[in-house]
């Protein structure tokens, strides 16, 4: 009988906080999964277009399990990215780091940040101004492949350089 004494328990009044109306939010909002707006990406034939960057150069690099070190293949892709960014100085980019679903939410956020940072540092080392590159980690929140095996995990352990299609000053 540790919790309850004989004396008056609990007591007095309490006002339970007001809660929100469940209908207040509707589901009409859509989530932009790519973190970039549509349109204005140009033609894949135009080497100065964001679409060319995405498709011909390759906007993403992949990582080994629990690693943020860049592979030789990744460095090859990033050399192309750096060149494109140097040639198209009006564009900025956001580098998104991602992890596969193995691992806790918090750790994967930090791991995705390491991956994005590896890419950022590499691009800066190739001459891209740091001010043009932002980094963000999505951890395991935004897989592109949804199976629970290495075939999918390998594609989800990625850093994607997303060109901001509206050139910013």
């Amino acid at each position, binding site marked *: 009988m540790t919790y*309850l004494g004989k004396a008056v328990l609990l007591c007095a009044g309490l006002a339970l906080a007001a*809660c929100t109306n*469940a209908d207040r939010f509707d*589901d009409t909002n859509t989530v932009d999964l790519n973190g970039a707006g549509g349109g204005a990406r140009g033609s894949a034939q135009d080497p100065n277009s964001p679409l060319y960057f995405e498709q011909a150069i390759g906007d993403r690099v992949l990582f080994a399990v629990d690693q943020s070190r860049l592979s030789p293949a990744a460095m090859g892709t990033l050399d192309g990215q750096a060149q494109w960014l140097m040639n198209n100085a009006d564009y900025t980019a956001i580098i998104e780091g991602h992890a596969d679903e193995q691992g*806790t*939410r918090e750790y994967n956020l930090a791991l995705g940040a390491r991956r994005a940072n590896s890419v950022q540092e590499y691009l800066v080392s190739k001459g891209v101004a740091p001010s043009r590159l932002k980094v963000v980690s999505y951890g395991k929140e935004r897989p592109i492949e949804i199976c629970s095996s290495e075939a999918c995990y390998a594609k989800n352990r990625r850093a994607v350089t997303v060109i901001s299609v509206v050139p910013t000053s």
Partner: protein
Amino acid sequence: MIRYVLSLLLACLLWAAPATAQDGPLRIEITEGVIEPMPFAAPDFVSDNAAGAELGRQIANVIAADLSGTGLFREIQPDAFISQITSFSSPVQFADWKAINAQALITGSVSVDEGGKVIVRFRLFDVFAGQEMGDGLQLVGTQAGWRRIAHKVADQVYSRITGEAPYFDSRVVFVSETGPKDARQKRLAIMDYDGANVKYLTDSSSIVLAPRFSPNGDRVLYTSYESGFPRIYLLDVGSVQRRVLESQDGTMSFAPRFGPDGKTVVYSVTRGGNTDLYRMDVNTGANTRLTSAPSIETAPSFSPDGSQIVFESDRSGVPQIYVMPAGGGEAQRISFGQGRYGTPVWSPRGDLIAFTKQSKGRFHIGVMRTDGSEERLLTASFLDEGPTWAPNGRVIMFTRETQGAQGQASLYTVDITGRNPRQVPTSTGASDPAWSPLQD
């Protein structure tokens, strides 16, 4: 705007008091190993009108569900009853309840007054001792708040029989999940601990993660991508007003958790790819850096006395659990088993640390003593993570995600003994639960 204001006045008055049998034979020691659940009877609470009778039936059902849900009690179905309870004040026919092996009997009455106020009285009987256990109690609330009254009654029964602090009158804030795995939408939601009364606190326009209650349950810290980058927000549960706490350009902040003073927050900041721990006074915004290592430091949690912080770090090469003084300084590693350890959370009782462990391709929720000794794994699945403690430190809730393209997250509870794993019913996918303190 706020169409539905749930206001519950709960006045508890001492009711008829033949105070006897403080430590009678009716007792469950919940720290013991496998036990036979205690059979109990919870007949519908009686009422003198139809509205009250329906409420009396619902209240008895919720009480029975609370008690049965612990795995420590087993409800005897009403069709087995020999005696019927038709009046709250009539003497109990103990022989009739003994005959069906009801060790505990809960009786009650409900009345609804002209103003719509609900008055509930209850008594708990130790059938085999033939006497009342503890004092009768009267609870007053609103019709909308009837479930809380039922939880309060169940809390009384649980406490009187186990000697433990209760936890049924509590809430859980969590992330409601809808949509496929590669386009998942997440919203903050709050519900009663048993999954009832779900209310949404945010819309689904931004990813939200890992909400955490303030020590008195009035505010929630969480991480949102509202700005395009993960940042920590503080939300007032009553008004649903929120504000960003940490928004340094070029950084990410996440994994926030309150200290026991309700104003100190400890969290992770990532800058230049490196993640360290910080603490902040939420009133002044002043922050202090607690760690500076090239490794990942995240998932911090205060000890209940506020003197120490347990956290996760991969400074040894793989994620392990460390404890350091709340102001920073030398950290002691406390996890030494095979595998990867994460998301440590200090028990509200101070005696244990719950954690997530990843080993040989499986995930576990486990507990260890605060020095890392006596590690015990309570669960195993494809993906279990993110433990949160019931306010009495006897039950843990966590996220379980199923495997594959159709994988879904849901909430589970388990005893700290590893017994009684149960799914918490939610109408959508659900993850990242945080259990509130016991409500007032």
